[in-house]
């Protein structure tokens, strides 16, 4: 799922001070799953913001609303009735949701309330780890189902750098696994270590962002 995290409250306070009435908009999809922008987080953040802004001398009325998905027009439409009654929107959706709302209601400022950080897996309650970088050139079939693009700090393609700690963690973060160590372990368990001897050529990054903003057109699905 798409992972996002709250922006620091002081940053939000700076952006919102001066407004009198805003809409705090949640999204019940990915950001709800990662506990950043669902209904619960919207209802938690609203009083915190009210308090922080009132302490700063900028009392603010916050209307809250959480839609099913801010990245789908039909759900964004549900906000149409409230938008004229507020001065700005603080969206807790990912960057896609924020843009959809801003596109549907270009007359109003939409502030992002979260930073969208990664495509991650919920490993266990309260712990998400990045698993995909949407690189556009998937190699998972050759790396035993472990992604060296998203999970190696250097996106190395041919094995670990010299920075794997004794316990198999990355030298940059004692809590993060060296993904190449995991790949090697899995390959060894399958008796296929030799398969990692093959030199992987430079990747084609052009199917994703590095090829310019992506646009996917499916004629068979066009109206």
């Amino acid at each position: 799922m798409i992972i996002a995290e709250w922006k620091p409250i002081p940053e939000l306070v700076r952006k919102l001070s001066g407004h009198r009435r805003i809409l705090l908009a949640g999204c019940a999809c990915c950001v709800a799953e990662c506990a950043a922008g669902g209904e619960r987080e919207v209802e938690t953040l609203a009083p915190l913001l009210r308090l922080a802004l009132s302490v700063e001398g900028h009392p603010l009325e916050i209307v809250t609303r959480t839609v099913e998905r801010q990245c789908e027009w039909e759900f964004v439409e549900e906000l149409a009735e409230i938008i004229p009654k507020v001065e700005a929107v603080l969206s807790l959706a990912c960057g896609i949701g924020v843009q959809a709302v801003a596109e549907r209601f270009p007359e109003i400022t939409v502030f992002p309330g979260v930073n969208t950080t990664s495509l991650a897996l919920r490993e266990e309650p309260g712990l998400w780890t990045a698993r995909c970088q949407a690189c556009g050139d998937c190699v998972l079939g050759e790396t035993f189902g472990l992604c060296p693009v998203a999970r190696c700090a250097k996106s190395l393609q041919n094995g670990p750098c010299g920075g794997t700690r004794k316990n198999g963690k990355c030298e940059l973060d004692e809590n993060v696994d060296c993904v190449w160590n995991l790949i090697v372990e899995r390959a060894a368990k399958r008796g296929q270590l030799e398969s990692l001897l093959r030199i992987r050529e430079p990747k084609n990054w052009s199917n994703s962002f590095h090829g310019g903003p992506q646009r996917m057109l499916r004629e068979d699905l066009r109206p």
Partner: protein
Amino acid sequence: MKLRAGSRLERVLAAGHFAVTVEVGPPQGPDAEVIRRKAELLRGLADAYNVTDNQTAVVRMSSIAGARLLLEAGLEPVMQMTCRDRNRIALQSDLLGASALGIKNCLCLSGDHQKASASGKLKGHPGAKNVYDVDSIQLLAILKGLRDQAVQSSGDPIEQPSPFFIGAAWTPLATPEAFRTLRLAKKIEAGADFIQTQAVFDVPRFAAAVAKARAMGLCDRVAILAGIIVPRSARMLRYLNERVPGVEVPEDLIRRMEAAPQPATEGKRIAKETIKAVRVIPGIRGVHLQAIENEAVLPEIIHSADLLPRPEVKM
């Protein structure tokens, strides 16, 4: 024998001499004199001199400029080049430029992550965007293509071949140890002519790793130079052992340093002993010395380790 790049380092190794390279860290400023002073200090002590490429991701004079300054001072550089800051376009362009400037040795590295730049007193640039378009093994292949086929990574031709004696790093004792020899094999397959290893303190374990590489026939295909870091204190040894992956320092060596009345002198002694110990490991063809911003200790160590005079080779 047909030489690949004809660098002094290549000739020394080809003639069967035990090679010596030392590391020269460029300054955090634009003063060419700093490099020239280091060149004077180290002249005649080594066959080639490694110029680091923004090591630990700290901004320094570029390795290309540093390497050229050494050349002008009459010393042969090994230009280090990392994949952190340049994509395949910039890497190849800089390699052609380095070649035009007379640089013949290049050590290909992944490079320290930019997060490493914020340590100690430095703010560094941890918020920088990295590149890592290609990795160090792909970079080796790029150099080999530029040299042997006069082609770019894409397959497009370049006008003339760009002759480099190609180097790579090896960290034989880092986790996952079982893979480290295979990774060395990949580097050789990709194009490495010489290897500079992570610092050696645990000689028996290092020798065992080299024996494994030798059994795979790798030592016949590449010249391995053992890395030697000159320790200054027990604290430094402990730090290296605990914090730098792939550096294994035996506890008795740390205790010996702790007990030494003059740790700096003891450190030089340890470096000298390590050089002598790795020299007799079958498959080791030289040493690569790092004094880490303390180059003044190198003349004495190199002299006392019986590495002088450096051989004359016909250029």
